C-alpha cells in the first residue's frame, strides 16, 4: 500500500497500460517533456520515447483527428485535452468521427481512443479552465463517459478505459489531483461501468461523481450529525449509467439528490432524475432534486465557491427532499 495523489494514480495507471501494450500512445499538448501541466504524464516520454508520448502541435481537432487514423492503424491513443474548455475545437472529430466510426463500419473499425479531460472548477483559474462538459458527451451515442473521483479509481479506471475497445471520454477532477489515497496494486478493481455506494444510508440518496463525491461525503457526515442518514453513490460511469445500485438505493430511501458542478439544465442530473422518476415511480416520496452549477457561464474565480455546489447546498437539497 502506497499513498498516492490522484495525479499520480492516473500517471501510474498510464504507465502500467503502456507497459502492458506497446500500441498504447499518449498524445497532447505539453504531455512530453513537461509531463503535462498537471504532471499526469510525468516521466512517460523519458521512459517510452517520443514516438509513444507525442507532444503535438497546438490544435485539438488535429489531436483527435490523427488519433482516429492511428486507431485505424491499430494503435490505442490516449489523448489529453489540457483543460475542459479546450475540448470544443475537437468536438467535430469526437462527435462525428470518433463516436460514429464503429457504427459506420458495422463494427469493422474499432476506436479504442481515450480522451482524458481534467475538468471542473475550484482552482482559482481564469475562463475556460473550470468547465464541466460531460453532458455534451453523454448525450452522444457511440461514446462512453466515465469520471474518477479518487486516486485509486484514477489508477484502475484509466487502465480499464485504455483496455476498452470503445472510445471513452475520461474525466479527471482537477481540483482533486493533489488529494491522496492508499493504492493496493494487488486489489481487484470494480468494473469500469459500475457505480458504487461509497457511504451507506437510509434517509436519502445523494448521487455524485468526480469532484462532487468528496463534497457529498462531507455532506453525509454533516447530515449524520443532524441525525439524517445519507447514502452516497459515486456514479463513476456517466454513459452508460449503471442504474441497478441507483434503483436499489432509491427504493430504500425514497429520496434522491443529484449533484454536479455542470449547469443544472440538461446536466447529467436531468437524465438521472428522468430515469429515477420513471423507473422508481412508486418508490419516490419526493421529486428527485438537482444541485448543480447555475445556468450561467462559469464565473470569475473569486465567486466560484458560491457558484459551485458545496456541502451546504447539498444539505439544503437533502432537507428540502425530506420536507416532502
Amino acid at each position, binding site marked *: 500500500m502506497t499513498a498516492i495523489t490522484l495525479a499520480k494514480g492516473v500517471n501510474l495507471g498510464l504507465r502500467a497500460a503502456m507497459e502492458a501494450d506497446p500500441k498504447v500512445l499518449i498524445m497532447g499538448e505539453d504531455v512530453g517533456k513537461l509531463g503535462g501541466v498537471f504532471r499526469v504524464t510525468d516521466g512517460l516520454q523519458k521512459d517510452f520515447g517520443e514516438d509513444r508520448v507525442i507532444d503535438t502541435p497546438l490544435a485539438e481537432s488535429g489531436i483527435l*483527428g490523427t488519433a482516429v*487514423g492511428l486507431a485505424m492503424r491499430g494503435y490505442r491513443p490516449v489523448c489529453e485535452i489540457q483543460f475542459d474548455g479546450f475540448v470544443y475545437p475537437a468536438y467535430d472529430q469526437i462527435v462525428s468521427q470518433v463516436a460514429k466510426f464503429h457504427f459506420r463500419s458495422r463494427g469493422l473499425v474499432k476506436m479504442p481512443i481515450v480522451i482524458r479531460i481534467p475538468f471542473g472548477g475550484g482552482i482559482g483559474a481564469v475562463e475556460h479552465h473550470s468547465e464541466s462538459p460531460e453532458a455534451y458527451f453523454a448525450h452522444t451515442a457511440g461514446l*462512453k463517459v466515465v469520471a474518477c473521483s479518487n486516486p485509486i479509481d484514477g489508477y484502475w479506471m484509466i487502465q480499464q478505459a485504455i483496455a476498452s475497445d470503445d472510445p471513452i471520454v475520461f474525466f479527471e477532477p482537477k481540483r482533486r489531483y493533489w488529494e491522496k489515497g492508499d493504492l493496493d496494486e494487488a486489489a481487484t478493481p470494480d468494473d469500469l461501468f459500475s457505480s458504487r455506494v461509497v457511504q451507506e444510508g437510509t434517509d436519502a440518496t445523494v448521487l455524485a461523481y468526480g469532484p462532487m463525491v468528496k463534497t457529498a461525503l462531507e455532506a453525509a457526515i454533516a447530515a449524520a450529525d443532524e441525525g439524517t442518514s445519507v447514502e452516497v453513490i459515486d456514479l463513476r460511469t456517466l454513459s452508460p449509467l449503471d442504474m441497478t445500485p441507483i434503483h436499489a438505493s432509491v427504493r430504500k430511501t425514497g429520496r434522491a439528490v443529484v449533484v454536479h458542478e455542470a449547469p443544472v439544465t440538461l446536466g447529467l442530473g436531468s437524465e438521472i432524475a428522468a430515469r429515477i422518476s420513471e423507473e422508481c415511480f412508486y418508490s419516490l416520496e419526493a421529486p428527485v432534486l438537482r444541485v448543480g452549477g447555475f445556468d450561467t457561464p462559469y464565473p470569475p474565480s473569486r465567486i466560484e465557491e458560491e457558484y459551485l455546489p458545496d456541502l451546504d447546498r447539498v444539505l439544503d437539497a437533502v432537507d428540502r427532499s425530506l420536507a416532502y
Partner: protein
Amino acid sequence: MLTRRIDTEATALQRQGELGIWASLLGQEAAQIGSGRALRDQDFAFPTYREHAVAWCRGIDPLHLLGLFRGVDMGGWDPLADKFNLYTIVIGAQTLHATGYAMGLQRDGVIGTGDPDRDAAVIAYFGDGATSQGDVNEAFIWASVFTAPVVFFCQNNQWAISEPIERQSKIPLYQRALGFGFPGLRVDGNDVLAVYAVTQAALQRAREGSGPTFVEAYTYRMGAHTTSDDPTRYRVSEELEHWKARDPIERVKAYLTRNGVADEDYYAAIEQEAEELAVRLRKGCLELPDPSPLGIFDQVYEETTPELQIQREQFAAYLSSFEAAPGTHQGALS
C-alpha cells in the same frame, strides 16, 4: 469508361427514386483513375464521397457505393482490409485521419526501408472547397511537422456546390503547401497519364520517408454537385462547353487510338463490359437487402450497454406487438 457507366447508371437509379442521392464524378475520371492506379496494395486511401473511380481501382464493388447512397448502410466494404476508408462526408475530416494513419505507418517501420513491397504511403482525397476547413490545414501542419508519409490529393473541380474556387483562394491552390513547408504542385487533372506520373512520384517520396506532398489535380465537375443540385442557378453553360472539349475520357481515347494501343474492337469490348456491369448494378441495387431495424443497436459499441439492450428489447417487443395485433393503431409502421 467503366466508372463513367457506373456513374450514369447511379444517376439513373437516383432519378427513379432508388437512391437517395448520388454524387457524380463526371469529368474527374482521369484525376481519380490516374491517382488510384498509382497506389500499391499496401497503400491506404482516404476518399471523400465522390471517389468512385478510386474505389474501382481499389477493387471495391460499385454495388457497395450504391448501397451507401441508397441508405442500406454507410459503405459495405471493409475499409481496413480494402485499404480504402469509408466515404467521409464531413468536409476535410479525413485529411487528419490520413495523416494519423501515416503516423502509424511510421511507427510500424514500414516507410523508408527500401523494400518496394513493404514501404507504404497514404493518400488523402479532398476538394477545392475543403481547403478552407481548419482540419485540412491542421493536417498540413501535422504532416509537415512529423514528416508523415501522406499525399494530399486535391481535385480542384472549380466548384464547391455553387461556390467558385475564388471563394476559397485567391492564388492557385497548390501554392498553399509552400506556407506549410512541403512541396505543392499542379497537374492537369484531365490527363490520366500525367496524374499517374505525378501521384506515383509523390507517393514514392512519401514511402521513402521524405514527407508529404500536395497535388492539385486541376479538373472540372462536369455534372451537378449531386443529384439534388441545379447548377444552372450559378454557372454559365459556356464554362461547361469549354471543359467538355477537355473531357478526360475523350482525351485518353484519342491518345490510345493515335498510338495504336486500342482499336475499335477494344472499345466495343469495353462498351460491352460496361453494359453488363450496368445491368448487374441495376439488378443488384434493387435487390440490396434493407438493414434490420434491430441491427442498429448492436453496432454502436464493441461492448454494448445496458441502455441499448433495454432499448433493443423494448423495440423488439413493440415491433412484435404489431404482428400480434395488427391494425390496433391507425398509423402504418413503415
